[in-house]
């Protein structure tokens, strides 16, 4: 069964027929060619596929494409403009929070959701907020540092951090 979608992906309006059984993850990767969002477990445990759905961090592997009709979706591809990085991306670079990089897109999106919710999160809050994003390389410490730094930089920015 095909279903018709009318959504915004990274500010761009997209109207497509997609198979109804496609997850949001498959829609982004296979229909839209937005392969920045990663597939790690397909059961919502690893967070590699995290995107923002109407501003909230969700595992795109556990959302069906037809569910998002009318929604506003942000993926990692929407953060930078050309070669200009979003402050959260810059903070990840500067704090060496990117090793193999497979968890990075999901973690960036979770970080933005967190900073939208709470511009000044405590370390404990950061840790529990990103606990649904597994990383096997970094031991999380550089990521936590990056989020703290981004919070400092973005403190006075109006929310949401993506417009």
């Amino acid at each position, binding site marked *: 069964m095909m279903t018709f979608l009318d959504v915004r992906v990274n500010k761009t309006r997209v109207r497509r027929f997609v198979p109804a*059984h496609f997850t949001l993850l498959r829609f982004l*990767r296979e229909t839209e060619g*937005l*392969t*920045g*969002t*990663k*597939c*790690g*477990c*397909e*059961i919502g*445990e*690893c967070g*590699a596929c995290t995107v923002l759905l109407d501003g909230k961090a969700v595992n795109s592997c556990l959302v069906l494409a037809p569910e998002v009709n009318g929604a506003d979706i942000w*993926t*990692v*591809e929407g*953060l*930078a403009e050309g070669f200009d*990085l979003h402050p959260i*991306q810059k903070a*990840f*670079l*500067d*704090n*060496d929070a*990117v*090793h*193999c*990089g*497979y*968890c*990075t*897109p999901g973690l*960036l999106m979770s970080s933005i959701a967190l900073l939208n919710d709470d511009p000044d999160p405590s370390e404990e809050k*950061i*840790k*529990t907020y*990103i*606990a*649904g*994003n*597994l*990383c*096997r*390389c*970094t*031991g*999380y*410490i*550089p*990521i*936590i540092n990056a989020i703290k730094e981004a919070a400092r930089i973005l403190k006075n920015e109006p929310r949401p951090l993506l417009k």
Partner: protein
Amino acid sequence: MADEKDKLKVVGTRVIRTDAFDKVTGRTRYSADVNAVGQLFGSVLHSEYPHAEILEIDTSEVERLEGVRAVVTREDIPGAKYFGGVIPNQTVFAVDKVRYYGDGISAVAADTPELAEAAKLLIKVKYKPLPVLSDAREGLRADAPKVFPEGNLCKHHKVRKGNVEKGFAEADLIIEREYSTQRIEHSYLEPEAVVAELSEDGGIKIIGSIQNLFSARRAVASVLNLPLNKVRLIQAPLGGSFGGKDEAVTVLFCRAALLAIKCGRPIKLVNSREDSFRESYKRHPYFMRYKAGVKSDGTFTAMEIDITADAGAYASMSPFVTWRSVVQATGPYRVPNVKTDVRAVYTNNNYTGAMRGFGSPQVNFAVESFIDEIAEELGINPLELRLKNAFVDGDITATGQKLNHKVSLGEALKTIAERSDFVSKWETSRKSSSRDVRKGIGISCSYRGVSLGAEGTDAASVLVSIQSDGSVIVETGLVDMGQGAATAISIIVAEGLGIDIEKIHFLNADTSRVPDSGPTVASRTTIMAGNAAKNACEILNERIKRVVSGEKDLGFEEKVAICFREGISLYAVGHYKSPKTTWDEENGYGDAYFTFVYGANISEVEVDMRTGKAKVDKFYAIHDVGRVVSLSGAEGQVYGGVAMGMGYALLEDFHQTDGIPDFKNFDEYLLTTAADIPKMEVEFLQNPDKAGPYGAKSLGEPSTEIVAPAIANAVYNATGKRIRNLPLTLERVLIGRELVRPSKRGSEIARGEK
């Protein structure tokens, strides 16, 4: 060398990873992000049994299905039916029988991934189930089911030094203990993926998440019966590997290639996490018996060690993994008399192979727990017992090798103990009698042979190509899998040419364009590729100097421009071959590695005495890396190594019941999350080694290999309970033993799952 540090401009600084920009923007194309025009999708049918003869495979029904373009089985293999770098006994598709639950029987290529996945279920396979060998300790019995007709012994290594009987006779105390470690899954976040297509002038091109391209190429070429130059393997950026993307990806390469050949279309083959768990190799479970003789003052007189390693269904790297274990089993201590035996035994479990640590996490858990137990028996502080026996400059190892470099183990132990206030915390904690929550502190240390050692030929090449504008392209057969090799090698090139790291572009490996540099394993990349890169820079600097000598004040770009004008090639192949190592397999001794690294860990834990939950509060790590190449990269390696070691200590256990894995995905196989991470203090000792580029050695594996014993020793310090089996589950900590679920989970019974 001490002066050299001041002169270094790039080495040892904090740099931004060379590959990070693409990764934060989502532009990096991992294997699964690659699509070939006209590609079809593959799916692999796995065995229904851990051990069975295959009587018949009937693919006729699936072949008739619309949208299915190819089905391949053992019948479609033109070349070798078995592959393997050490002992070629692994199958691409099962030949006469299946040896583990993850064995592939057949693969299907179809127009869509969902069709491929559905279609394979129409393949009919007749099996004759065979008895399952699930416990390696039973594998060498005469009546054990045979995984291979020759028997179940994959490899037996030994170390013999002095006379252990004599040593035990001299001892005041003889102590014997048994330890075990569990099977664990690499859990790289990126599941394996490949895209194969016919090309290369009658050959094949495959891009994939491969860690060791050249061993994979040998396997693919032999299976397809093609010469090496017709098999082009390209490494896609790896989403983690940790030793895991070797044979597990090689089989995918072969299967995708066979499908591509059969239908003439590009094939994309992507493992789900469940496929990955089911099929991929793991870290070896070890069963270890340790016996030591000690004088009452804590001097060792002898150590006798007997280890059985579960090799699972195929040899993979077991012969090499267990060799490192046999060399390092006594830990970094002076022991005059040693007898060590390590046997890798085939079973019908998932095969086991290379994983970060490579045979050291297991023996380190045992020996570092054992040292604490000996200290307890002798009434000596565990730090003191370590310091008393720890290697110093010029000591002789268990294999008879003289340590003729700076041995910094004592410095590491003393420094970390001071930082953490170990002795006083240890004394205080052991007196705690709280019945609710107790704190504990534990220490561990290790020495580790750098690179492959006498396992094999150890050489690497790096290509450095200076462009006419002064920018530089670097290529090598050793790969970045997230550990930062691209950055480390780029730093060494930047240092060697005297330029900014931003000028350097590091390319992923391609077997048709770079020379075979051996595998990216054994924490050998910085030292091997680093030396080769440095060599390439020296060659280039020499060429530049010859042309522009006398013109002192020229910048790099100007010098390069002159060379191009003069027709001087600024493309160089740097090469490095490691110093000589030796090994006498028969008599069990030799100069196993050309140099060693040293490190120590301390863990502070808090144990909930009523639930058995142990939480790591604080972690200290110190490592002598020779020379730090990338400071943030080095710290990151340690943070990640500790997090992985914490999983090994507390959470992870890829348990199998009669050969069938208990876990399918990350909902039940638990990794360390951000919420589990303690405060960490990381420190590096820098005693430059003459063998390393700018003195650098290695760090990737040392950072994870002694985490578990530090935690287990801390839990003992808190609770007075010695846990000799990993992981330290709630049950083990509370009641001292593991509880095994006898049957299916409630959810599975309720849903009628297999």
